[in-house]
């Protein structure tokens, strides 16, 4: 193996000579440095290869002078050192490339020297096994960093650097005192020798020993920026050149982390616990404070601090846990470290490019969006990035060790972090016209009355006002329009390529780790969405034509579906058809789009495949992975909407919260298998676990109280996405419920005998009612449909929680039929929106004459949706009430009936206000929707008619799917289905209806065969006058005003208020917290000393 002394020796030699090289040419030092860094990286890689190739995988020791340790200082290269050095040196190399390639690069002279000494120092930190030598390298690293902070010659950089110096000096002082005392007590400085000693016995003779170790620990811990004594570090991240911040965060901090890990073997358990607490506090509070942060670099600083905090926590934990667990959890720390190194560096670089190019938004820069997405996603621990796997492993280990509290801390912190990171993302992606966080329909201030002119003006004004009031704008950069002519000149693709390398590393590492994790359970197939996504994004970046891409994607999905569905049966098959076939049909409408829509097809494809993967994943990891993939992809898809930034963020946060809740639940109940087992399982799970899992499902379904992400997400997403989300993706929650169904029969209260499912049932019933009521009062058609979906899914929840044969059949029946109607409705409405360019229903009207086919579709789907016979929706209602009454859930049945009556109201309003009434002037020349929208509609209508005529076609298979879990409750006689209560013959109803319809029609035709006269639009009996404008004659706005008058006061959005309250509280908590960062270097110094004192006092209390 190559001796690590070459890294230190040759590196330093080159660093010493760099000033001379500079005399040969300005660029020479850069090139030499980059070559040096490359050599470092290659050396480290060679170590990894050799050690992992070796049989024993033991670390190799390298001595200096020719004496063995402890007589001389020795260096150690083990697998873990080698891995860490590969990551650090690669990051350093990329940093160097970035620094030398960026526009107007001033990377020369002393900056390069210090850069190199920093890297060498970090290498030394990782390699050395001597405590004092560690101190020397620590000082090399620190001094290089102190100096580099000032390299951008800005006022604030000097301020931050000085504070950093103060803090660093105090930390060094602690460390030095600790080291000298440790030498006094143990007689050596060689770590391994000290570890081998009986420290407990030594403690007895030397009562100061533990404090000596504590001071060493404290010295390094402070360098790792524990909350709350870390204001200086955050200032430094904010004020220095972003490329330097990247180095500090990725390279410098990583070295210190490793040093901390090295000395952690000295920690007694009490100290390890304090370290755990310190790390956990740092993680969660840094993220909390970060929530409030609006300056990007400072925000990244908080994130860095938090990330390091979680690693510190793991380092403490590995001293406490059993040896196997310790190794497991340490591996996750290494993964997290690597994840942090590359993502954080990438983000700092991107923020630099951002400044260089004076960008404000990246909506039109696909590559930058991808890079941002990758780095932010990996920092937030989303799949498939490395941190996801690391956190999974960590949480598994913690769950096995019953450290629930830490799991909650980790997930809470992760949620906060995802919150502010993705708030940044959404701000970057935001369209100019996007007013930010909205979750209610935005009705133009005044209704256009006299002409379309005023309407446009007023709505623009309203939007401007909204934009002014809208939430936070993250980066306070000068406002530049996207069409800045100089923008193109400022671009620097080479630098972006460097950043892209970093992202490729992150993705590759994530995929490899994923393969490693999933191989154990033979679930490698679950990674397909990642592959598809990557390939698809590449296609998009290479401008593959939209339609070819679409056809490829659909072919791929078909093949996948074929393979998957062959292997499924029962309820799985039902959901398989729902997820895969349902989505595939809706993809047809994408054919209407002509030009490239960046990321659209890859993400939809990956989303559909992830949904499919839910069905075939057998382990918790597989399931959770697919679940999270689905969540992330859906929120990204939502974000494509023009005004969806707020809605997308909200969706992401709620879904992540739900997913984490589900995760904790699964972890709480380790014996549980994620296989559909019906309700027969009798082992009693912890009630909390059941609640948490069901919350995960209900968030996805948008159940009452957890629904506030829903309207915005469905409404602001693009039409095709809304359709897919509401008709297909929301059923994933239902699927989770089915899979975990064996949990819900446990008693709600320990002593009682009311099962949890009763609570779910009530939630479902009230969701249905609330969804219907909310839909009733919307003017915006997409909001109406969004709330409608919420209500419909509520019925499914209600039916599911009956936990009877009929209940489950009902739930599945409604899931399938809702897919049909809602997809049809969304498609038809998409066609209308495509033509009218407005979402406000009252601005439409009379469209039946312009879009007859769309009208028929809407008519059919609302008849079906509202459950009016003879169409298939009635089947759902019949099954539901029968099931409810059979079970004895009478009051729930009452609520459901009320909800369905209200649903009838908003559905009528929908069709009336859009298609009937007075046609508007601006719509007179409109055409029917494009054929791409119409084809799926016609297919859907045929299917609906078929199921209506022959309900057994649908109910039969569903019944058989459910039968393994319950005994049959309905029987068929011909076309008539009998329950214990009643019966229904869909076929006969259809014939009777046709009969009674034809009879009067014939009569009417006969009576009026000669003298029917079609009249013009305004020929109506209106006080004998002809009203002049369609706007004033069309009754559409505030249609159910009397309902609002009667019940409005009960319909205050308390759920929204509650969540707003939670957000405000968290936000202001973060706001209060950050007041400790006064900016005064002296205060920071005091905080450090106080922090140290408190930790030491805690330790003393422990002894």
């Amino acid at each position, binding site marked *: 193996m190559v001796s690590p002394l070459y890294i230190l020796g040759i590196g330093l030699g080159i660093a010493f000579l760099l000033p001379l090289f500079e005399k040969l040419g300005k660029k020479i030092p850069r090139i030499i440095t980059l070559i040096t860094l490359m050599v470092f990286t290659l050396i480290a890689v060679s170590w990894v290869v050799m050690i992992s190739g070796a049989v024993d995988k033991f670390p190799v020791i390298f001595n200096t002078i020719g004496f063995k340790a402890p007589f001389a200082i020795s260096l150690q290269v083990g697998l873990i050192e080698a891995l860490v050095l590969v990551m650090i040196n690669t990051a350093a190399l990329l940093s160097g490339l970035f620094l030398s390639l960026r526009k107007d690069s001033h990377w020369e002279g002393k900056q390069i020297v210090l850069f190199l000494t920093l890297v060498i120092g970090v290498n030394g930190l990782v390699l050395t096994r001597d405590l*004092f030598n560690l101190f*020397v390298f620590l*000082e090399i690293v620190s*001094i290089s960093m*102190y*100096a580099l902070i*000032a390299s951008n010659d800005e*006022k*604030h950089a*000097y*301020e*931050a*650097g*000085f504070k950093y*110096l*103060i803090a*660093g*000096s*105090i930390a*060094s*002082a602690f460390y*030095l*005192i600790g*080291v*000298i*005392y440790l*030498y*006094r007590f143990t007689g050596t*400085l060689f770590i391994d020798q000290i570890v081998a000693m009986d420290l407990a016995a030594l403690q007895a003779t030397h009562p100061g020993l533990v404090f000596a170790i504590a001071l060493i620990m404290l010295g390094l811990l402070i360098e790792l920026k524990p909350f709350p004594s870390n*204001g200086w570090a955050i*200032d430094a991240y*904010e*004020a220095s050149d972003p490329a330097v911040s990247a180095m500090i965060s990725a390279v410098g901090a990583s070295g210190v982390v490793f040093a901390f890990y090295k000395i952690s073997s000295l920690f007694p358990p009490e100290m390890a616990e304090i370290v755990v607490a310190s790390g956990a506090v740092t993680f969660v509070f840094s993220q909390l404070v970060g929530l409030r*942060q609006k300056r990007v670099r400072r925000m990244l600083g908080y994130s860095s601090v938090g990330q390091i905090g979680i690693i510190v926590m793991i380092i403490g934990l590995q001293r406490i846990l059993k040896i196997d667990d310790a190794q497991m959890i340490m591996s996750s720390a290494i993964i997290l470290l690597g994840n942090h190194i590359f993502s954080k560096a990438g983000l700092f670089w991107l923020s630099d490019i951002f400044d260089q190019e004076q960008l404000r938004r990246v909506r039109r820069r696909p590559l930058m969006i991808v890079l941002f997405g990758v780095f932010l996603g990996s920092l937030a621990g989303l799949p498939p990035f490395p941190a996801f796997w690391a956190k999974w492993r960590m949480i598994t280990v913690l769950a096995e060790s019953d450290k629930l509290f830490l799991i909650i801390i980790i997930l809470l912190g992760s949620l906060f972090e995802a919150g502010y990171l993705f708030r940044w993302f959404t701000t970057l992606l935001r369209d100019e016209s996007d007013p930010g966080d909205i979750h209610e329909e935005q009705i133009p201030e005044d209704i256009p009355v006299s002409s379309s002119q005023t309407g446009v003006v007023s709505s623009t004004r309203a939007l401007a006002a909204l934009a002014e009031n809208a939430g936070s704008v993250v980066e306070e950069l000068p406002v530049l329009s996207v069409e800045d002519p100089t923008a193109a000149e400022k671009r620097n693709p080479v630098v972006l390529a460097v950043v892209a390398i970093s992202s490729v590393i992150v993705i590759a590492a994530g995929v490899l780790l994923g393969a490693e994790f999933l191989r154990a359970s033979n679930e490698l197939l679950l990674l397909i969405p990642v592959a598809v996504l990557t390939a698809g994004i590449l296609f998009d970046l290479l401008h593959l034509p939209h339609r070819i891409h679409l056809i490829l994607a659909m072919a791929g999905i078909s093949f996948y579906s074929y393979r998957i569905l062959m292997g499924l049966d029962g309820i799985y098959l039902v959901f398989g058809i729902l997820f895969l076939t349902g989505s595939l049909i809706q993809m047809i409408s994408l054919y209407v789009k002509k030009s490239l829509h960046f990321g659209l097809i890859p993400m939809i494809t990956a989303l559909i495949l992830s949904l499919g993967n839910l069905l075939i994943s057998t382990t918790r990891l597989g399931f959770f992975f697919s679940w999270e993939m689905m969540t992330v992809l859906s929120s990204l898809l939502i974000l494509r909407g023009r005004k969806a930034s707020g809605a997308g963020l909200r969706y992401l946060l709620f879904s992540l919260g739900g997913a984490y809740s589900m995760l904790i639940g699964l972890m709480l109940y380790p014996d549980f298998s994620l296989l559909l087992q019906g309700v027969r399982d009798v082992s009693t799970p912890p009630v909390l676990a059941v609640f948490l899992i069901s919350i995960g499902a209900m968030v996805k379904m948008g159940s009452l109280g957890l629904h506030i992400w829903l309207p915005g997400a469905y409404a602001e997403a693009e039409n095709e996405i809304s359709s897919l989300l509401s008709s297909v993706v929301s059923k994933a929650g239902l699927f989770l419920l089915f899979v975990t169904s064996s949990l819900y029969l446990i008693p709600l209260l320990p002593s009682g005998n009311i099962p949890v499912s009763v609570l779910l049932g009530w939630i479902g019933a009230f969701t249905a009612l609330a969804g219907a009521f909310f839909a009733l009062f919307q003017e915006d058609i997409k909001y109406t449909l969004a709330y409608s979906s919420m209500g419909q899914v509520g019925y499914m929840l209600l039916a599911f929680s009956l936990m009877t044969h009929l209940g489950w059949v009902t739930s599945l029946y409604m899931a399938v039929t809702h897919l049909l109607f809602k997809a049809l409705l969304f498609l038809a409405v998409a066609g209308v929106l495509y033509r009218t360019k407005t979402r406000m229903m009252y601005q439409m009207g009379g469209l039946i004459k312009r879009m007859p086919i769309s009208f028929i579709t809407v008519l059919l789907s609302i008849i079906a949706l509202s459950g009016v016979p003879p169409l298939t929706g009635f089947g759902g209602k019949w099954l539901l009430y029968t099931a409810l009454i059979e079970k004895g859930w009478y009051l729930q049945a009452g609520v459901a009936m009320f909800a369905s009556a209200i649903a009838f109201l908003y559905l009528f309003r929908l069709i009336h206000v859009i298609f009937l009434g007075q046609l508007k002037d601006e719509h007179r020349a409109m055409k029917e929707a494009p054929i791409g929208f119409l084809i799926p509609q016609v297919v859907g209508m045929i299917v609906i008619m078929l199921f209506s005529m022959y309900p057994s076609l649908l109910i039969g298979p569903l019944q058989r799917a459910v039968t393994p879990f319950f005994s049959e409750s309905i029987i068929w006689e011909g076309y008539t289905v009998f329950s214990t209560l009643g019966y229904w013959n869909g076929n006969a109803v259809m014939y009777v209806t046709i009969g009674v319809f034809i009879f009067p029609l014939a009569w009417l035709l006969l009576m009026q065969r000669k003298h029917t006269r079609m009249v013009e639009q305004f020929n109506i009996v209106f006080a004998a006058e002809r009203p002049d404008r369609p706007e004033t004659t069309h009754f559409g706005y505030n249609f159910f005003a009397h309902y609002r008058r009667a019940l409005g006061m009960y319909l205050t959005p308390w759920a929204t208020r509650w969540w707003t309250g939670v957000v405000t509280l968290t936000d202001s908590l973060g706001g209060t917290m*950050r*007041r400790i*960062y*006064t*900016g*005064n*270097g*002296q205060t920071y*110094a*005091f905080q450090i*000393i106080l922090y140290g004192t408190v930790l030491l006092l805690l330790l003393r209390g422990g002894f």
Partner: protein
Amino acid sequence: MITQLLIILGAALILVGFWGVLTRKHIVKIIISFSILDTGIHLIMVGIGYIKDGSAPIIDQEMPVSRLAGNVVDPIPSALVLTAIVIGVAVTALMLSYAVQLYTFYKTVSIEQIKELKW
């Protein structure tokens, strides 16, 4: 006895140093406080290396190799303190440079007025 004395002295200097760092407003005074702090630590290091009745670990006529053991102080802390002093100098130099730059930008030497970065 000597060890104890040096350590107490060192500890006192460390406290004085911390006190200065935490209470002086003048940047240069803070830097001086750090030097005092360092000196205290160095004193402790030297004190810890002391061996009862030991002299310097240097071989000469009075101290041939054979007499060394038991009669000289520990050379390791001496070596360490040498390194520590140099590092201290390096840090002080950097601090002073920062002080100069801060003065040119902020036109003040009071640490309380150099706090534009916060929260």
